[in-house]
């Protein structure tokens, strides 16, 4: 008799309700949201630094992303436009944390911006998210535990989905 290794999710009793409530797959649980909010309390003091580092990194490690910034004079890590834009991005992510209960509505304007004006291929949201995670591991090594990692990864994926809403 093969050993049963499947473990039902803790909130399996709520699945009926959840299925109706949630439009997206792999949505944020209450625990995820609490984890994200608590962790963001520690991030916000270093947010600009983290944003600048993540963006710098992305431009170096994934050079195809530079195509979106051809209008900047200097794309090197820590340059003035990178610093400024890194801060802008992190302010957006921080705003998303405050709107975590309804990201689609909360990020409507940003979605329209990315869809119609910036026209960033949504695959790049994943790339930037990965670089944010790397920077979090560097800057907050003891706080960025596997449990926090999964919650933040899910959150950034949810933000990416909300940003992609208006694309087509």
């Amino acid at each position, binding site marked *: 008799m093969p050993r049963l*290794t499947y473990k039902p999710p803790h909130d399996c009793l709520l699945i009926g309700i959840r299925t109706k409530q949630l439009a997206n797959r792999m949505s944020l649980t209450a625990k995820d949201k609490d984890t994200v909010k608590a962790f963001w309390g520690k991030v916000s003091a270093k947010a600009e630094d983290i944003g600048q580092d993540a963006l710098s*990194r992305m431009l170096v*490690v994934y050079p195809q992303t530079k195509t979106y910034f051809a209008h900047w004079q200097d794309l090197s*890590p820590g340059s003035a436009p990178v610093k400024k834009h890194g801060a802008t991005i992190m302010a957006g992510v921080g705003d998303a944390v405050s709107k975590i209960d309804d990201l689609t509505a909360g990020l409507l304007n940003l979605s329209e911006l990315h869809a119609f004006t910036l026209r960033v291929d949504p695959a790049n949201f994943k790339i930037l998210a990965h670089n944010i*995670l790397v920077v979090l591991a*560097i800057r907050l090594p003891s706080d960025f535990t*596997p449990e926090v990692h999964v919650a933040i990864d899910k959150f950034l994926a949810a933000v990416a989905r909300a940003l992609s809403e208006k694309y087509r």
Partner: protein
Amino acid sequence: MVKWTDFERATIKDIFSKIDSGVVGSAALSRCLTVYPWTQRYFGKFGNLFNAAAIASNPKVKAHGKVIMGALEMAAKNLDDIKNAYTQLSILHSEKLQVDPDNFKLLADCVTIVVAGQLGKAFTPEVHAAFEKFLAVVVASLRKQYY
């Protein structure tokens, strides 16, 4: 044929000399099983993987982490021919273990994050780029024998 710059060669060698190899493989595997729980499908015989704490303390996860680390170190020593060095591993993963190759990137991302955590500020964007290039070559070599 992958071309490595002198900087990349030196950087990869340096990274492997600095990281705690006893820990990195296990921490990365443990993180992968926690952050991407569907990867647990390949580890049915590992026992308790029910939550992050169980995964982190699971002795089979720790042991397998060391196996993975050994393979990465082997790749680092064979930079100019990882593809051939990994032929048997690729056949193993495709024919015997039947691992969906998309999972290799998930584990590679976790390895990057664990190494970043260990090296801290020394994991500069340039060092990071060299390391991700190395992992991309490892992943591509592991995919090579799938058909």
